[in-house]
């Protein structure tokens, strides 16, 4: 049996990038903090661009712990939502078409979130990646790590549980 000819790479990239842009762009608070995402295949990296308004203590100065904690929560939720979107887009069909036409998925809801502040956040860009350690039908567990200049020296880490939206709600 002959394999169907794969789609051109630009078509695939465009579709995936558009889906990610739509997911991130739909959440006002992500834009408020200035968080963006970079994609390599299905892997996401959150970027918190430095902004004076995200400073907590102006004397140090350091990023507000609430902002860096929020950054990790955003990264965790986006990772979860992205994993749902990815699966649906890649498997094709009506649901993929709906998403491509600008349809949204319901977002996972935070049940609990524990943040571990390892170092103070320096006044420059920060990065974060999340790993889904359990992905169940009802809830998911996610670990997130944030770093700045040095990938091997995270300045913040977090773990959280999230209630997954029901598939039939979209």
């Amino acid at each position, binding site marked *: 049996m002959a394999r169907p000819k794969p789609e051109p790479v630009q078509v695939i990239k465009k579709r995936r990038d558009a889906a990610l842009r739509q997911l991130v762009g739909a959440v006002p608070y992500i834009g408020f903090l200035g968080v963006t995402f970079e994609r390599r295949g299905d892997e996401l990296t959150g970027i918190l661009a430095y902004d004076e308004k995200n400073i907590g203590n102006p004397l140090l100065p350091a990023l507000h712990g609430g902002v860096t904690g929020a950054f990790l929560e955003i990264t965790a939720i986006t990772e979860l939502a992205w994993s749902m979107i990815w699966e649906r887009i890649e498997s094709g069909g009506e649901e993929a078409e709906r998403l491509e036409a600008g349809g949204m998925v319901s977002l996972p809801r935070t049940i609990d979130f524990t943040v571990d*502040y390892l170092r103070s956040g320096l006044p420059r860009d920060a990065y974060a990646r999340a790993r889904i350690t359990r992905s169940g039908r009802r809830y998911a567990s996610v670990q997130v790590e944030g770093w700045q200049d040095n990938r091997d020296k995270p300045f913040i880490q977090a773990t959280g549980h999230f209630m997954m939206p029901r598939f039939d709600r979209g």
Partner: protein
Amino acid sequence: MSTFDLEKRIELARGFIGALPHAQALGMEFVSMALAEAVLRVPYHPQLVGDPETGVMHGGVITTLLDTCCGTAVMLHPTNALVTATMDLRIDYMRAASPGLAVSARAECYHTTRNVGFVRATAFEAEDESAVVATASGAFIIDRATEGAA
């Protein structure tokens, strides 16, 4: 020995939090301050929405509110911290805050050791402390002035 003057401390805490750029960006307000206790509030704003489907504020806003409120409670504890930094903060979400309503937080620093302040806090809707949105507990590192200094 340094002495603890609550009125002065409250004034200091107000000045300090009023100067936090991110607290300003959120429009964070003081509600009340007392011994080892603080109540702060963030008004609802469409920019802070985390779920476009429901219009509910993002959990990150509540994290920032709780973190700031807990840190303030440590500063208002008679242990006389000079500076405090969050070491660990756990937040449990009871339910989503109603869209359109402010979220407030009350934090209490219930114990301190030489280097650590332990805090618990509750986030609730507007002025209704029975409408609990989230609870939190945290540990804060306490920095003190050099021994013997005022």
